[in-house]
């Protein structure tokens, strides 16, 4: 009994544990220092002033709208894609899996540039995609003559730029979620009379709700932090395509460092809320459904 603590705290282990703590502590110190530096740089008055600014209010509004639309679109794509990758074997699966990681690995500016080239330099049946979109949605001008339909340098470009990257993260989350739920759940559902679709909607997806929630939250957070692709593909026009990340850029450009830091703090706050939500709800993910795999049958 007395030897137990000694075994855990032998003298020779000391440098190892102190080393771990020192390395982790140094990184933690860097993060806390960044937050503290931002916090000490601004006053409540400057935060109030920034939040009262009409341009920044527009930016907050557009950020909330675009991030939410992006998160929804990402999940619409990520749930079936994650399911496909998790459950089925098909030719070229490895390639598809690798391609889905490209938006995560590519430099953000390259994504923006690629979107710009795709929409303006790739002709399909004699027109670029941008021209096709403008053509398809020209009826909008009959209702609202002040609106010119299109994607590039407009709000849809903000959403598409955010979506391109966010969706890749959402797909990864959903694949991991489905991987953690044993396919036998669907097998049992099939023997109970379900077809594949019913097994998915009635049995699998309800058990994956924490993963869906985590995926959507991560997609939202990723969209919030997106900057490079938005700048290149949507621009940073005040009152039109300005979101919080571009607001920081614009405020720095006009020399309003206080305003830029105030907006940054707002983004940090939003990111912290997202992290807390993911930690408290999402981290359990489907492990909470382990019971359904027999693993939760503990008295």
């Amino acid at each position, binding site marked *: 009994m007395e030897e137990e603590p000694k075994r855990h705290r032998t003298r020779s282990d000391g440098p190892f544990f102190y080393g771990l703590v020192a390395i982790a502590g140094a990184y933690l110190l860097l993060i806390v220092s960044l937050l503290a530096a931002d916090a000490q740089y601004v006053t409540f008055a400057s935060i109030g002033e920034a939040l009262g600014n009409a341009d920044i209010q527009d930016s907050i509004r557009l950020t909330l709208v675009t991030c939410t639309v992006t998160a929804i679109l990402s999940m619409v794509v990520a749930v079936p894609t994650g399911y496909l990758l998790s459950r089925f074997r098909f030719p070229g699966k490895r390639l598809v899996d690798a391609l889905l990681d490209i938006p995560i690995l590519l430099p953000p500016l390259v994504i923006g540039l690629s979107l710009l080239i795709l929409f303006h330099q790739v002709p399909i049946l004699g027109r670029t995609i941008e021209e096709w979109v403008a053509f398809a949605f020209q009826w909008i001008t009959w209702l609202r003559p002040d609106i010119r339909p299109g994607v590039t340098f407009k709000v849809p470009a903000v959403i598409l730029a955010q979506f391109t990257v966010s969706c890749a993260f959402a797909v990864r989350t959903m694949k991991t979620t489905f991987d953690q739920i044993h396919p036998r*759940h669907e097998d*049992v559902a099939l*023997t*109970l009379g379900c077809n594949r679709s019913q097994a998915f909607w009635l049995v699998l997806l309800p058990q994956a709700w924490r993963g869906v929630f985590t995926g959507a939250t991560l997609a939202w957070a990723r969209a919030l932090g997106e900057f490079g692709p938005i700048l290149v593909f949507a621009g940073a026009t005040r009152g039109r395509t300005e979101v919080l990340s571009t607001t920081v850029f614009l405020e720095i450009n006009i020399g309003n460092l206080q305003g830029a830091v105030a907006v940054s703090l707002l983004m940090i706050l939003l990111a912290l809320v997202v992290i807390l939500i993911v930690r408290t709800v999402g981290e359990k993910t489907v492990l909470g*459904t382990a*019971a359904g795999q027999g693993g*939760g*049958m503990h008295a």
Partner: protein
Amino acid sequence: MLELRAVRVQAGSFELRDLSLQVPRGAYGVLMGKTGSGKTTLLEAVCGLKRVVSGSIHLGEEDITSCRPGDRGIGFVPQDTVLFGNMTVRRHLGFGPEIHGWSRQAIDARCNELAEDLGITHLLDRKPLGLSGGEGKRVALGRALAARPRMLCLDEPFSALDEDTHAEICDLLKRIQQVHHVTTLHITHSRREAERLADVRFRLENGAVQAA
């Protein structure tokens, strides 16, 4: 009666060839075999979860070889129970009948009847998390029986149970099988289990089924 006629099943590189067996109507069949011998693969083929490459599977007069799993009238209890984490015990019992289009009233009556038979009435509003191993097995059994299947397939249903619960579930299974007159195919590697439950016994060895 369940009859397998020269069934060939392939699962990746693993293959079972020329499997034939008969479990008479209403009988309790036990299939034994070593780990990795293909017992689960065979059971999944009977349930329609693994594709039969050649041969045929008959249940009663019907050739069910190419039927969808849900149209075979087979209740399946997998080895690891596989309860649905988001559903209450009541919903587990009512799920099969609901999918088969039973009326609400008939579903409720069936849930209550099964819960009483299986001794899980007090658990009806609980979710799987926190149920004991024995309780989980009872729920899985009830779920498989709910839509009145013609046959029951049990994949090592006593795995991970302590001695007392093992005996208790063993008695329950035999009683339920007799009460519901359901043809049963139970796979296990326990000779003791086979002796206790089986009307007919088989052994799966080197890819072939023999009477044991």
